């Protein structure tokens, strides 16, 4: 049989009622992916209307048939059998018949899923969600415990720490991030200074933009913006690295060597993060204030005036309180990133999902911790 062109006209369908219980469908033309749809719909309508006990398809004038056509016959057979009737195809050419015999309608029926739960009610869904959330909390608590114990052991036995991995991570986490930290903080500082200068102009208080900027930056913006950038950059990288190790069975290999991946893989990353993030925050603070300087210049203030305002407004307490938070942010970035990687599933999207999860969970946790610190500092009067 010759494959018809895709613009071939659809086949014709003639329905013949032979007696009260037998319906014959005489099909003429080509049955393929492009031409089968109308005849399919019309045939099903005919069956539904007449409900024959015997359905016969006369295929003697079908000159081409591919698997779309076979699927059409199979669908008719399954529908007819569901209605309790019989089905037969006759008159097919040898070639088409050979193709028809490749498929077994019995095997192509949709599985009976009457036992499966099609939809849960809201209480079941809430219960399932609650159970999964509790499991998630347990996993995180256990991991936090393991990391804490591993860190304490590392502090007591610093010779056991994989310092080579710490230094490599310091370079990737710290040194390689300097440009992006500088750029982001510069732009944020510039925007904050500009946006605050506009309303302050009404009161002639533009000089206090410097005060606002240094207080906001030292206490909140510097630590948070730097941590967010580093989380997106390095937290996701940790997740991807460990996720790939999981997929490649490298974590299994560690397990069967009796090596706990937490001290082996996680501790060096936590140590590097804790060492680097405060330094990066100081660097970020500097560029945030430089962004503010640009705005102050544009407002006609001098460098001396700006620096004078900064030194009046800023205190060591502000700086240290901001930097202290970064220690916690660093642990979150490394811990969440590593845990997301270690829990990566199998499959092509697993590593990407782990990286996404690391970034999202990291951001949320850091904001929560920042909020807690805000309350603590308020109570302490810092």
């Amino acid at each position, binding site marked *: 049989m010759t494959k018809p062109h895709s613009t071939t006209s659809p086949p014709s369908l003639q329905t013949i009622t032979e007696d009260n219980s037998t319906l014959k469908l005489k099909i003429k033309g080509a049955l393929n992916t492009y031409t089968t749809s109308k005849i399919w719909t019309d045939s099903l309508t005919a069956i539904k209307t007449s409900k024959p006990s015997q359905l016969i398809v006369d295929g003697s004038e079908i000159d081409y048939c591919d698997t779309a056509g076979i699927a059409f016959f199979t669908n008719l057979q399954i529908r007819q059998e569901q209605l309790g009737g019989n089905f037969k195809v006759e008159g097919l050419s040898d070639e088409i018949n050979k193709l028809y015999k490749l498929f077994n309608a019995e095997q192509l029926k949709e599985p009976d899923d009457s036992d499966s739960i099609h939809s849960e009610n809201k209480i079941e869904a809430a219960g399932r969600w609650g159970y999964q959330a509790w499991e998630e909390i347990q996993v995180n608590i256990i991991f936090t415990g393991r990391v804490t114990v591993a860190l304490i052991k590392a502090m007591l036995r610093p010779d056991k720490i994989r310092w080579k*991995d710490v230094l*490599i991570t310091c370079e990737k986490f710290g040194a390689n991030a300097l440009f992006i930290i500088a750029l982001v903080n510069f732009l944020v500082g510039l925007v904050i200074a500009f946006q605050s200068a506009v309303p302050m102009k009404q009161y002639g208080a533009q000089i206090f933009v410097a005060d606002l900027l240094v207080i906001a930056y030292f206490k909140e913006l510097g630590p948070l913006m730097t941590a967010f950038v580093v989380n997106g950059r390095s937290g996701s990288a940790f997740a991807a690295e460990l996720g790939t*190790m999981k997929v*490649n*069975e*490298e974590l*299994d*290999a560690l*397990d*069967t*060597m*009796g*090596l706990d991946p937490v001290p082996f893989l996680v501790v060096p990353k936590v140590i590097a993060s804790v060492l680097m993030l405060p330094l990066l925050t100081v660097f970020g603070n500097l560029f945030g204030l430089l962004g503010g300087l640009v705005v102050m210049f544009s407002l006609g203030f001098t460098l001396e005036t700006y620096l004078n305002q900064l030194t009046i407004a800023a205190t060591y307490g502000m700086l240290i309180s901001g930097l202290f938070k970064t220690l916690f942010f660093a642990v979150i970035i490394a811990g969440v990133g590593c845990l997301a990687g270690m829990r990566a599933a199998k499959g092509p999207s697993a590593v990407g999902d782990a990286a996404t999860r690391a970034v999202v969970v990291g951001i949320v946790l850091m904001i929560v911790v920042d909020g807690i610190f805000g309350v603590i500092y308020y109570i302490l009067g810092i």
Partner: protein
Amino acid sequence: MDKKIINVKELTAAYGDNVIIDNISFDVVKGEKFVILGGSGCGKSTLLKHMIGLYRPAHGSILIEGDNIAKAEGQDRIEILKNIGVAYQSGALFGSMTVLENVMLPLEQYTNLSKESIDLIARMKLNLVGLTGSEEKSPSELSGGMIKRAALARAMALDPDILFLDEPSAGLDPITSAELDQLINQLAKSLGVTFVIVTHELNSIYNIADRVIMLDKDTKGIIATGDPEYLRDNSEIPIVQKFFKRQTDDQLDR
């Protein structure tokens, strides 16, 4: 009587409610090359992962030189793991380390040897597997066959009594696969190590195995055990015949 180095008793392995292996028992004799085979999805890799302590069984015990790895925890588990070596299907070499560093790792962790000694032992292991000259390469620079050899060298780092190999010939061309089979035979002969190998490559089975067990997906158990050539020529179980003769139902009926 030959000493039994591994005893698996009434082992049932499941993922949740999905039972993969149901109540199997078998032993591995010290020094033999024992092959676990079967069709895809019959639970070969699952069985191996239970035997190396990665998974806990739903029921049963796995005694490695008398110690139950299925229940061991903490330091007890580590002591058992120090006596076995595992070479994974993908190699599972650590990408951030060189080949030599991969082999040195278990030695650094568990011995008090000097760095120099560890370096030498690791080089000897690589020499045993034919990778002298590749010590400073990273895993990404190795061919498939070389990765398998490096993984084998790392598995042998602590001179374990038992080596577990998961699909060692997977992804290899026939010549490289045959070379790996030859290496396994040489190591078994020269080191007296017990091998437990999961594979479905018939040529490797005939080349390596002293004894095999065949797992079956439908019965979730052991369907045949013994010498592979004997099973090929004498088994009356259709699925065993199909497997060893690489034939479908139609071909078998002819």
